[in-house]
């Protein structure tokens, strides 16, 4: 025992002396730590905050859980253990990787905005960051119904506090109303502007009654709808935006500063494309140009909701047609290459995209089932890193939001006039009357594959309905679940009901 005590005494003495050998300080050599970031770096932080929006434009979760896209399994391809079926049929569990990924992506954007706001900013920088923060909160409350929040500069060890659905949407509105006047009025469409704030305010007021409820039974308050209208009017009366006469030009590689873009993701050919090439790779067949992954299709019912001649159903981008023979829009029927030769699938069958898209494809139409969705067309100058900008908030949506709010406040005539104004630009026949079903269908035709479909279906009370290859779903699927990892790392977060 004496030996042990002696040993410990010597040991402690040496340890005490030894600490001075090196004090174990750590420096980060090729990156900065928090103390090194100052107000001078805020413009750099803001540039990267804008870059986070690229992932929003590329997100597929809100479309694949809706009635305008389906991903069939094709033999050995695209089964992915039923992950796509789970999305389409509303059977996901809390560990569904697509949903977890989307939640991570939105909250990472939210974090980038929060982090920037701990530094000293100019009033416009602050307004831009607060807008983007509000936008992420909007997406998260829309999908998950609860929003975990941190204050600028908070430490990891502080558990994020959680805003419920109602608190979150009120916060979005109060934030946007506080900063709108500090935003620029007429900028490139990838810079947050006053119009962007008004457009997001319109979205927020339009959905507020839904988020204030259990999302199953709600009614739209006249005050909120009036706010939708006044925010839309602020954009319309600015005169800075107008409907594009060429619908698919708006999504082609030369769509920079489209007159309909209120806020977009700015992609630059060869430098930054934020995965927009996936939009066409995912849907094109292997034997098309560029050789695709033969994945995403739309549903027959959605295709049939368009009348012939509606330019949003089918069109052409001349440069695309010349380079590959590809049409724009919903690709139905026989496909051709740029020389006009009819294409075949890998088994030698005609490459004829069928109307029906069974969720498990097979037989002669294994590779060819389903109408393809070609909204963002390929940029043949650089198919892997294209120049197409991606719309986040669009003028046609503003018009339709105003029309919907008018309709919900009982002014069907004014609503119909706006919808018909849009339809005439899109070469669609004039409607005689308007109601909820017509309004929802019009939003679908105008905004397909622009990440609003789930939001619209929920607001119109149709999200749980049965549609092709999907039975009616349980109300719990109105909200996405939180993964076990999130519940474990934040005790303030409660799993959504039913999961």
């Amino acid at each position, binding site marked *: 025992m004496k030996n042990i005590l002696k040993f410990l005494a010597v040991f402690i003495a040496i340890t005490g002396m030894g*600490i001075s050998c090196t004090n*174990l300080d750590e420096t*980060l050599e090729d990156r900065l730590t928090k103390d090194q970031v100052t107000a001078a770096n805020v413009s750099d932080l803001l*540039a990267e905050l804008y870059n986070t929006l690229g992932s929003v434009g590329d997100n597929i979760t809100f479309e694949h859980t809706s009635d305008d896209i389906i991903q069939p399994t094709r033999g050995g*391809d695209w089964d992915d253990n039923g992950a796509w079926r789970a999305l389409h049929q509303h059977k996901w569990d809390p560990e569904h990787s697509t949903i977890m990924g989307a939640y991570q992506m939105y909250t990472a954007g939210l974090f980038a905005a929060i982090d920037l706001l701990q530094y000293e900013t100019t009033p416009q920088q602050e307004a831009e960051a607060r807008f983007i923060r509000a936008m992420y909160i909007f997406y998260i409350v829309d999908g998950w119904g609860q929003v975990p929040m941190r204050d600028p500069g908070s430490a990891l060890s502080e558990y994020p506090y959680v805003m419920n659905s109602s608190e979150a949407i009120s916060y979005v509105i109060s934030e946007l109303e506080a900063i709108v006047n500090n935003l620029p009025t007429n900028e490139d469409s990838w810079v947050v502007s006053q119009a962007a704030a008004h457009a997001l305010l319109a979205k927020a007021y339009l959905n507020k009654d839904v988020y204030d409820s259990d999302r199953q039974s709600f009614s739209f308050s006249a005050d909120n709808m009036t706010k939708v209208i006044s925010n839309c009017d602020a954009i319309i009366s600015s005169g800075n935006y107008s409907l594009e006469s060429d619908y698919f030009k708006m999504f082609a590689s030369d769509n920079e500063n489209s007159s309909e873009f209120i806020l977009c993701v700015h992609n630059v050919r060869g430098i930054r494309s934020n995965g927009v090439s996936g939009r066409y790779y995912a849907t094109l067949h292997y034997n098309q140009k560029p050789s695709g992954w033969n994945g995403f299709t739309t549903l027959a019912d959605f295709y049939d909701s368009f009348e012939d001649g509606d330019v949003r159903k089918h069109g052409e981008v001349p440069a695309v047609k010349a380079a590959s023979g590809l049409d724009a829009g919903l690709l139905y029927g026989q496909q051709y290459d740029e020389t006009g030769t009819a294409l075949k699938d890998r088994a030698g069958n005609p490459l004829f995209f069928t109307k029906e898209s069974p969720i498990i494809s097979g037989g002669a139409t294994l590779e060819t089932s389903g109408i393809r969705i070609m909204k963002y067309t390929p940029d043949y100058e650089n198919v892997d890193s294209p120049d197409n900008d991606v719309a986040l908030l669009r003028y046609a949506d503003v018009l339709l939001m105003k029309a919907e709010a008018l309709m919900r406040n009982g002014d069907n005539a004014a609503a119909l006039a706006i919808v018909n104004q849009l339809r005439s630009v899109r070469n669609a026949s004039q409607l005689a009357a308007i109601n909820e079903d017509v309004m929802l269908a019009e939003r679908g035709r105008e905004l397909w594959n622009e990440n609003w479909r789930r939001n619209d279906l929920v607001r119109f009370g149709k999200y749980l309905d049965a549609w092709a290859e999907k039975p009616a779903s349980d109300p719990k699927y109105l909200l996405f679940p939180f993964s076990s990892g999130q519940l474990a790392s934040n005790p303030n977060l409660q799993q959504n009901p039913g999961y």
Partner: protein
Amino acid sequence: MVGYSYQVNKRWGKGISGQDFTYDEVDYLNQLQAISQDTRNIYSYYDPESELQSFFGRVNFSLYDKFLVTATMRADGSSKFGSNNNYGYFPSAAVAYRISEEAFMPDVIDDLKIRLGWGQTGNQEFPAGASQAQYSITRDGLTRSQFDNPDLKWETSTTFNVGLDFTILDSRLSGTLEYFNKKTKDLLFYAEAAYPSPSSGKVWTNLDAEVLNTGVELSLNGRIVDTKDFTFDLSANISFLKNELQNFARIVETGALHGQGVSGVTSQRFVEGQPLNVFYLLVFEGLDGEGKSVYQEGKQYVGDPNPNQILGISASLRYKNWDMVANFNGAFGHQVYNNTATSILVASNPTKGRNSSPLYMLPGESPDNPLSGSTRYLENGDFLRLNNLTFGYTFKKAPWFFDNARLSVTGQNLFLITDYTGFDPEVNTNKAVDGVPSFGIDYVPYPNSRTFTFGLNVSF
């Protein structure tokens, strides 16, 4: 005995690449300005340096030659941890009681010892810089890439073991029986951060969870024949192992399967109450009338890649100048996931002009059968391998001017007894997800080779 050690790790690099150089006569690095700008690519990185300094000491003493005591103490300091927790202190102590020294023990027992040990060790395996806030410098600006975690501290394993060593029958038979219990806490884990967080979504943290490893090891060494011309030694050891993850409040997926049709599909989990890397898969029930797979609803915990038993056998024989050594090893009670079969040797291959294997195509299977990760490809990983076999001849009187001479031939990996259908069940293709390790997945591995070595050893 006391000691001090110091270690520093640095890792940095810079690179430049380009294409379409015009003049081969001039060093490419001296004409970088002339190549097209699109093909130029440059990068640089410099990871944070990590320093590790340790102070350690040990004392041994014995009482009446019967009780042997060893005590050690370490203080390990690492720059990687948060400033609050650079140092970890790791003591250990062991006592042994040599019962054979007692007068009452019969002579047939040469040596008999009971050992009792307890000790702690620390782990600091994670990237330097993990405890600090980090802002990455990008082409467009600056982005917060990591949370700070100043509370990051040493992961500690506490091991308790009790063992019995014996030697009997004039040292003809000896052996060890040992039980161990190792509990690891403050697990260092690249875990999901509480969102909102930087875009990696992860942070190195100490999890409030434990890994419990327990096991029994038995080894026996016997000299079965011991004459002047002929000796035969046989030794065998077997370990019975069990591991379990405890108090783990989350579910972490890993073991990403590879191939078309299984994008994003994972096969393993870290989850409370299950072994590490437990297989979590769809349960395959057979084919339906159309030749398509039928599964039970939902994934299930269906297997364990960690062997329950590990066996080693070694035999050595010597007859006059001839000798022979054989080593066998084996592992039992675990499963291997055959991702090669899931994704490469599939039923649709013949329709695409590729080969498949009858091993992996079921009778009546449709070429349209969707690919899925499932128990169809989870196989028993039991094996016994003849790892090594050596024959040798030692010259009693070396010829010519040599003092000694020996001829030998050695074969490695000579045979493998297993039901596993892939190349080799001793396989571990890295299928980690976000740095969470996988274990026991086979995906187009390079097969173990069989080696023959002929040897001539001489000395002058």
